[in-house]
């Protein structure tokens, strides 16, 4: 017990210790902000991977670590699309994941925001044209916000999510 407390005291506060984003923030239109306004201060996200290289996943996971601590802004990760306000989709949509993506979208309650995360989700990135890829996310479901980058840094993702929240 003492060991644990000592460790915590020694560590101190690490939240916010990251360099400011250098990339330009993605566009968030007024309609999207309007759509998100009913959610108030919270934003519950379901992350859907439709064929990413897992780089984007790792950065989404990083958002939840104590350094970025997205929870302090009311951003949560939901275990089911039924509990989600927004879907964050990563990766080009593979032929094998196309159905699953559509099912998830159908299962998400309104006003389902869709955020395409990473170059792959925005325009298929390096996998554009492959026989196994059916196109970017917006070919299958309407996309509200696109966050470019391969992968975008957590600070950039966080900035974009905050913008969706209207802050």
């Amino acid at each position: 017990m003492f060991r644990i407390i000592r460790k915590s005291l020694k560590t101190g506060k690490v939240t916010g210790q990251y360099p400011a984003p250098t990339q330009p923030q993605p566009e968030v239109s007024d309609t999207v902000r309007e759509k998100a306004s009913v959610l108030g201060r919270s934003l519950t996200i379901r992350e859907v991977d439709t064929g990413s290289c897992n780089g984007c996943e790792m950065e989404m996971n990083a958002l939840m670590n104590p350094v970025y601590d997205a929870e302090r802004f009311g951003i949560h990760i939901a275990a089911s699309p039924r509990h989600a306000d927004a879907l964050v989709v990563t990766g080009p949509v593979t032929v094998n994941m196309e159905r699953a993506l559509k099912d998830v979208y159908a299962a998400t309650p309104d006003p389902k925001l869709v955020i395409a995360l990473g170059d792959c989700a925005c325009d298929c990135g390096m996998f554009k044209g492959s026989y196994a890829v059916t196109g970017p996310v917006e070919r299958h479901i309407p996309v509200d916000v696109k966050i470019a980058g391969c992968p975008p840094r957590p600070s950039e993702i966080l900035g974009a999510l905050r913008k969706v929240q209207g802050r």
Partner: protein
Amino acid sequence: MVDINEAVRSIQATFGTKIRSADRVREIPVVTAAKQDIPAIASHIHRASDLRGTLSLQWAVDLRPRQAAYRLYYLFTLGRGTWLILMTELSGEDRLFPSITPRIHAAKWYEREIRDMFGLIAEGHPDLRRLVRHEHWPKGTHPLKKDFSWNHLMGRQDGEYHFRQIEGEGVFEVPVGPIHAGIIEPGHFRFSVAGEPIMQLEVRHFWKHRGVEKLFENLMWSEGVALAERVSGDTSFGHSLCYCQAVEALIGVEVPSRAEYLRTFFLELERLHNHIGDVGAICNDAAYALALAHCGRMKERIMQINDSLTGSRFLRGVNVVGGTSVDLSLDGVTMIEHTLKEIQEDFSDLARILFHNASLTDRLETTGVLKERTARDHGVMGVVGRASSIDRDVRRDHPFAAYGHLTFKVPIYRYGDVRARLRVRIDEVHETIGLILQALENLPAGPISTAMSSAPRPGDWALSAVEGWRGEILYFVMAGEEGKVHRCKVRDPSFVIWPAIQFAVLGNIIPDFPLINKSFNLSYAGTDL
């Protein structure tokens, strides 16, 4: 160590004229035989007491347009790290080859993969369901055949995958996935349970199949590095290094020694942040969130270092064919040495907390045991293998980059449970920090890359291995016409280890599955390609 000349002689002595030829390609012996003799020879290599070969990779190449034939390669690792390749050819319209799966378990997925990608059928294979191609892919779609275009527009058909079923009173099935409850990659797990314990697990993957190997064939060999970095994002550096090494061997480029040390340094940095992250995540799946918070913070610190040194948190863009594109400044070296010592102390504090926690230990011990025998039969290596007594590590057995000049220990544990896998990682964190400090201390001066001069001869090939943080990554690159890649076989260790997890979970309860799965922490993207 197995003497390779001795091994080849013994195979020739046993099989006589059945061995058509025994050549060397860049030191690797390649034994050629007719297809009908392959199962007997492969089985001999696998079983003979003086050889004891593990099947490390099996793959096919479509030789068209140069030759209307398919070639099948079987890579065996004898002893710890001696390679031997068995090869056969199917010419003309021949689409059948005898399966070795009934004798060598590790071939199971490879042969299913070859069937899906090339339409070559392994006769006598006990399980010829589709693997990569999900049931909705139209019949006759075999992407790696040369007459299949990379941007082919795929149709859709109806079909259903038949899971293995257990029937009986009180047995029911629990389907999980492809989309899971956390931020994880997609995959499908089908459990059969009676009461609490798992009686059977079937893993159904390849949801993320993006056609990586076909995309390689579209690229010039110098462009493949960026794609290799995107095979499995968390192993960006390991994969790009393995690809670069294969291409460098092909074109005969000598990498400057500073670059060899830098590559070692970056590869260990990648191992470090992944291992630390895994330690936290494993504990978190046993409901010990404190570890996740501390490890998440340390991992983040290292990734920020990656970013400040290279401009990429994933070390992308660092490897180039012929060396590296990023150098370290003297200030950089001092900063890293200082930070790593801090992280080591930080991490040791945490490890002490973990080992003193009895309830955590209770969850980890005896959970998800992968027996040594099962691990051997599947050809498992890497972190998971080392937790089940498989004493293999490419860095020691097949030294690449600067590993031949550095000293480190390879931790081995016997129990094969979640705790053993956690301990391997914890030990390796310390070894890794030691390796980084050694590499920095001995960092030679000089250039960081060599210009490429010659182009590889079409049809020439090279094989390379890298010990990524999960385990042995293998790349086979065959040169094509006009500087293109004719074939690039990518093998992430995950492809080998996934089937083994089906055995490690038996008798455990479903709520422990996430914990077991996390302790393996395999890549879905690297498997699905």
